[in-house]
């Protein structure tokens, strides 16, 4: 397929051929690591520092990352790794072919949100470092921040012009470099602040309940990790089998992000005004050499992550009819355009509302992961009929009612309601039994349960959703089509 600058199917939502799925476990681990390590880790660590001290906070962040990734691993990863399809196409069986536009919205909104945070962080930190190093005057910081952010977006667009191949080439290199640079920053932090001060620092805004503080630190990390749902499909479809995808995703998206978030946690505890960002005070203390190290880390880490985000968002956007036949390069511009606008128009507003954004990630993605996991693993026994994913009409087995699966949307609404009842995403007020069960886990469980009940009582008896197709013998297309037509009639 010749599609803009992409000479194969990697720029479409179509299933990839085996010849296009040549990424090995190492390349995927490199991609996962380079994607997961970015300055958002500092932000997340800074938020956990509100509730937990250094040692418990570090362990709780690792625990939260593992649980969050678990939900991604049982929802989107089995589908994308098995069939070589992206997150949006893989969500059609649970949402319906028109309902999958909701996935496009989730994917687009979350990736734009994350990319805004990364570009703003990159711009601001670069400007501050350049100012401290006397490269630019202090009065030019704001304009320099916008210019640096825009340059990073241009680099991403340029790198992606030929599709994801560039990610395979640069992913492992970026992963190794950012891990080394993160290690250097951690050592500099320990050297300048001291282990004693870090471990004895009190949380910034802890409640009286130790259990509530633990649960909230845990919840923040789960919610953050669930956002990988948007990225994971686009990443694992490039690998040939599920076996090659599991370990790199499990390790690459959990351990590095937890470790680098620890730097944010330590920084926020030791210097509360830093908000988790160690860069400025390290440059103040260490001078030009440290400034260059920090600048290199920020540029490499954030550009590497934005690269993968824009690729995944672009593939998802191709599911929309207006973009399906446009060039790949135009799609990447659409995927990254809003980030550039935010960078220039409202960077401060976005930066000040990161906590709310994080909580909304959990409120939306936890129910989605719960529904997709039971839909694929339990109700469909891990079998989809791929042809039906690309029949965007009433002919498709995934047509349901007008292209929407009412059951899954009711289930997600129930999960979302559960989350908001337990933990309000804006003001962080909680209700019993939040402190014992978190908000994301019950939200996923309630959504999954409602979906199973409604599907068994309503969808399957009505012959919709193609639930019987997966059980048919492979290759029985005629029987499959016949059943699909009955289902959509």
């Amino acid at each position, binding site marked *: *397929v010749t599609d803009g600058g992409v000479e194969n*199917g990697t720029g*479409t*939502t*179509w*299933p*990839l*051929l*085996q010849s296009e799925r040549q990424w090995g476990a190492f390349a995927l681990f490199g991609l996962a690591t380079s994607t997961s390590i970015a300055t958002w880790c500092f932000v997340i660590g800074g938020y956990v520092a509100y509730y937990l001290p250094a*040692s*418990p*906070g*570090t*362990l*709780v962040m*690792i*625990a*939260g990352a*593992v*649980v969050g*990734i*678990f939900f991604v*691993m*049982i929802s989107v990863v*089995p589908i994308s790794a*098995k*069939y*070589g*399809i992206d997150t949006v196409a893989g969500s059609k069986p649970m949402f319906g072919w028109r309902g999958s536009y909701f996935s496009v919205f989730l994917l687009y909104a979350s990736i734009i949100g994350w990319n805004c945070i990364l570009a703003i962080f990159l711009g601001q930190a670069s400007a501050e470092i350049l100012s401290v190093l006397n490269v630019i005057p202090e009065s030019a910081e704001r304009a320099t921040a916008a210019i640096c952010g825009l340059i990073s977006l241009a680099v991403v667009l340029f790198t992606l012009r030929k599709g994801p191949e560039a990610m395979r080439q640069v992913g492992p290199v970026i992963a190794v470099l950012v891990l080394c640079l993160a290690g250097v920053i951690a050592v500099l932090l320990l050297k300048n602040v001291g282990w004693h001060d870090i471990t004895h620092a009190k949380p910034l805004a802890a409640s009286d309940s*130790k259990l509530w503080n*633990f649960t909230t630190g*845990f919840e923040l990390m789960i919610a953050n990790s669930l956002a990988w749902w948007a990225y994971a499909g686009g990443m694992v479809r490039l690998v*040939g*089998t*599920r*076996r090659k995808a*599991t370990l790199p995703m*499990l390790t690459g998206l959990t351990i590095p992000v937890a470790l680098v978030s620890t730097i944010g946690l330590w920084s926020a505890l030791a210097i509360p005004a830093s908000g988790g960002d160690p860069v400025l005070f390290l440059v103040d203390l260490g001078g030009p050499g440290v400034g260059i190290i920090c600048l290199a880390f920020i540029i490499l880490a954030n550009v590497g992550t934005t690269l993968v985000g824009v690729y995944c968002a672009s593939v998802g956007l191709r599911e929309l009819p207006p973009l*399906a*036949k446009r060039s790949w390069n135009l799609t990447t511009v659409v995927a990254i355009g809003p980030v550039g606008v935010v960078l220039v128009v409202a960077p401060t507003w976005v930066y000040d509302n990161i906590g709310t954004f994080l909580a909304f990630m959990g409120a939306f993605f936890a129910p989605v992961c719960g529904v997709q996991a039971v839909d694929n*693993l339990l109700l469909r026994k*891990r079998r989809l*009929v*791929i*042809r039906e994913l*690309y*029949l*965007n009409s009433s002919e498709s087995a995934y047509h349901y009612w007008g292209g929407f699966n009412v059951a899954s949307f009711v289930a997600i609404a129930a999960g979302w309601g559960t989350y908001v009842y337990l933990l309000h995403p804006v003001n962080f007020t909680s209700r019993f039994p939040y402190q014992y069960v978190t908000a994301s886990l019950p939200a996923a469980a309630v959504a999954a349960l409602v979906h199973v009940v409604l599907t068994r009582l309503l969808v399957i008896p009505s012959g919709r959703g193609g639930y019987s197709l997966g059980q048919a013998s*492979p*290759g029985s297309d005629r029987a499959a089509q016949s059943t699909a037509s009955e289902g959509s009639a």
Partner: protein
Amino acid sequence: VNPNHEQISTELQRRIDEAEAHAARCDDANGLHYLSLSLWSIAMPILAMTVGWFL
């Protein structure tokens, strides 16, 4: 994607056929896989949280 477009339809059909054949041949996820994944994802956080609680 326009399934009525003959050329695209042919290319898409080729991809669908290969994806389904590959999935049938290489479906290496089984109960044991999900059991070990679940055990890791439950046991490891419980251990980390327990240690963290007493630190």
